């Protein structure tokens, strides 16, 4: 027999083809027998696009983070324990009393009017004026990414994204067989000069990206924010070249310092920018509610796509959201969340300064959930993850945020999902292994590690080195149009 397709084999590495059903506890009765022969048979049924939908060694390693003794700085979870259970109970009771039958019924594909009004209010809070009629309610922000791809992408079409990009968008882009081109970033977000150079180059090759995917505010995974000047320039570029921008904005409301910046959607006035929002980080990911705001023709196609995918977003959780916002508690809850995450961010930044060696650099986010750290280029963070897991701490290796193999010496750290003590201890352990590996490399090559900083103040990242996100580039673009 020859097995060509269908999943993962286990040779020397004994890696799993599929993940075990999480609902199935060890010891419970299982399914029928399946074998490589069966897999081969199913493989003939799979669409060609599933060829790129494979699991990875990195994902398999992450299985260990489900164990309670592991401090996971790998997730992207908000801390839902902060939401008062009494409030949940009271709001749900109100939904039951006022709208039981509606909550249990199908709803409109575009979402219930009152929920869309709530979304318009939320967006008004960040400065963007939106007509509730232009809002499509979705199953989380993730569905917006999927719907936009479904609507715009034929196999081989180009999507331009940041490098690094949101790791959760990678499987979506792959599933639609997009050709993703990633643009380097620095502390001011995506390099618009490089973007323009790439667009020029694509145009010379007769190609035009279908859309530019960006998380401009507190980017996942980099933690950086697109500057106002670059926002303006990006919107100009989109308008001049008539390219759609998908602005993914899950974290905009989670600002811990500095002044809010206008969204791309607001700057553009809804011509070439589609906006993806979500309640996941500002209320609950469990309610699975996000939304899209887009130019009408695009919105209509997204709506058709959503009909085929989910028929309608959950009326149950939509009514919960509307009823909750009607209580007026949301603003106060957001203040609490911001205070909590600000402290956790500060704890992580302090811990990084205290424990990471001078060779390492990291971003200093003004909001959001993530910090992106970069180590010397001879360290591979996927290998480092294995070592970290042996010390019961986890992070996301940087490769997860690239489709082209870059990011090998970077890592993403989350500060919203762990308490301050765990953050400090987790970063201490990571610092320890990084120092050990640097020392080992020094011993192997005769290059001693950087001299430790003078005692006293903890080492601060050198501002000159803060340009950590300018990663090796594919090409040398002209820089005359840098929007900085």
């Amino acid at each position, binding site marked *: *027999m*020859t*097995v*060509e*397709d*269908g*999943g*993962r*084999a*286990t*040779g*020397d*590495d*004994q*890696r*799993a*083809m*599929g*993940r*075990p*059903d999480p609902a*199935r506890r*060890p*010891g*419970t*009765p*299982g399914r*029928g*027998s*399946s*074998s*490589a*022969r*069966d*897999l081969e048979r199913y493989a003939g049924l799979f669409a060609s696009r599933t*060829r790129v939908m*494979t699991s990875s*060694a990195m*994902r*398999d*390693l992450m*299985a*260990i983070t489900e*164990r309670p003794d592991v401090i996971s700085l790998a997730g992207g979870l908000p801390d839902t324990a902060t939401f008062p259970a009494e409030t949940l109970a009271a709001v749900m009771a109100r939904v039951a009393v006022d709208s039981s039958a509606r909550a249990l019924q199908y709803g409109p594909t575009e979402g219930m009017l009152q929920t869309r009004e709530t979304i318009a209010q939320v967006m008004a809070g960040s400065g963007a004026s939106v007509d509730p009629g232009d809002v499509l309610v979705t199953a989380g922000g993730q569905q917006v990414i999927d719907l936009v791809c479904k609507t715009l992408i034929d196999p081989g079409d180009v999507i331009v994204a940041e490098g690094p990009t949101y790791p959760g968008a990678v499987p979506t882009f792959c599933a639609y067989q997009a050709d993703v081109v990633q643009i380097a970033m620095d502390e001011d977000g995506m390099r618009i000069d490089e973007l323009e150079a790439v667009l020029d180059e694509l145009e010379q090759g007769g190609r035009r990206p279908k859309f530019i995917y960006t998380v401009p505010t507190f980017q996942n995974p980099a933690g950086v924010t697109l500057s106002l000047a670059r926002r303006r320039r990006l919107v100009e570029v989109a308008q001049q070249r008539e390219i759609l921008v998908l602005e993914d904005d899950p974290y905009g409301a989670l600002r811990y310092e500095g002044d809010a910046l206008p969204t791309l959607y607001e700057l553009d006035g809804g011509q070439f920018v589609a906006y993806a929002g979500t309640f996941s980080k500002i209320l609950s990911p469990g309610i699975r509610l996000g939304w899209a705001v887009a130019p009408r023709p695009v919105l209509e196609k997204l709506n058709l796509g959503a009909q085929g995918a989910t028929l309608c977003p959950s009326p149950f959780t939509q009514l919960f959201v509307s009823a909750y916002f009607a209580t007026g508690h949301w603003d106060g809850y957001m203040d609490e969340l911001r205070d909590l995450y600000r402290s956790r961010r500060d704890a992580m930044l302090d811990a990084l300064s205290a424990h990471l060696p001078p060779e390492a650099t990291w971003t200093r986010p003004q909001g959001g959930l993530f910090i992106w750290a970069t180590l010397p280029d*001879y*360290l*591979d963070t996927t*290998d*480092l993850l*294995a*070592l970290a*897991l042996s010390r019961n701490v986890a992070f996301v290796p940087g490769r997860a945020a690239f489709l082209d193999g870059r990011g090998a010496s970077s890592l993403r750290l989350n500060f919203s999902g762990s308490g301050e003590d765990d953050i400090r201890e987790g970063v201490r352990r990571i610092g320890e292994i990084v120092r050990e*590996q640097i*020392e*080992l*490399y020094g*011993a*192997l*090559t*005769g290059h001693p590690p950087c001299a430790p900083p003078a005692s006293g103040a903890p080492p601060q990242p050198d501002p000159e080195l803060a340009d950590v996100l300018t990663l090796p580039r594919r090409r040398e673009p002209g820089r005359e149009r840098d929007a900085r």
Partner: protein
Amino acid sequence: MTTALRVAVLQGGRSLERQVSLVSGARVEDALGRLGHEPTGIDIGHDLVPRLRELNPDVVFVALHGRDGEDGAIQELLEVLGLRYTGSRPAGCARSWDKVLAKELLREADVPTPDALVFSETAVKELGAADALGAVEERLGFPVVVKPACQGSALGIRFAACGAEVPGALIAAFSYSEKVLVERYVHGRELAVSVLGDEALPIVEAVPHEDDFYDFEARYTIGRASFHCPAEIDAGVAAATQDLALRSARALGLEGFARVDLLLDRQSGELQVLEANAIPGLTETSLLPLAADAAGLGFDAFVARAVELALAR
């Protein structure tokens, strides 16, 4: 099937191969259920001993991969508890888990295995082993394969095409193991022989796709490599391969079931044993089940036989 046995199926744990082990364990449980036994899956952790005492199993099926499962630690504990279990005893596990030790034992048994040099973290840090890196070129030539001495998966294995690539490859491998093997590269066909009791099952050949040649993970990923079973090789060579695998398993003291990985040198036609796995993967796409299918045995009969061998000793 005679009487229903209470079988504890050990899986998961803290190993880097936890995920694979959970899949292997689930499949073994399913097979045991179909065979009329009473399997209980246990994700191993701090409560392992009380759970085993409470269950008082007739036999323990060890479906763990990687550290704790394959290094002999669990088997030692099962010996202490006086429980019968599948697969190899502690010494057999320890000897195959440590690739450096395994290489020595294979050499002593006149089993051909590629030349290698060993670097330990201590030697690098404390004893100036870096000054001896030049020996890699003199003794082995390039390219070399750099691999952690103790790691069950392809993780951390790298090619180094020249001296400049050695330190980076060593650093990667040291992430998994304090000892690292730098092995002469053999350009060969990749063969795996699964051993069940005293028998060698049909040979599996892994053929990596060309563009993934330098990616060790890809070599064992269906879709990025092809697997042929039985391998399309000359009958005489196949018999010699199986014989060598059985000799290797004996030299290392492996029992019950195991898998031996070999290379068939494309130039010289010689066989070289790379390593042996005390508890190879048992997932839908693992090589041992593939071989069991090709032998006409099937997975359930393999599991039945593994249990029978455990009870017979």
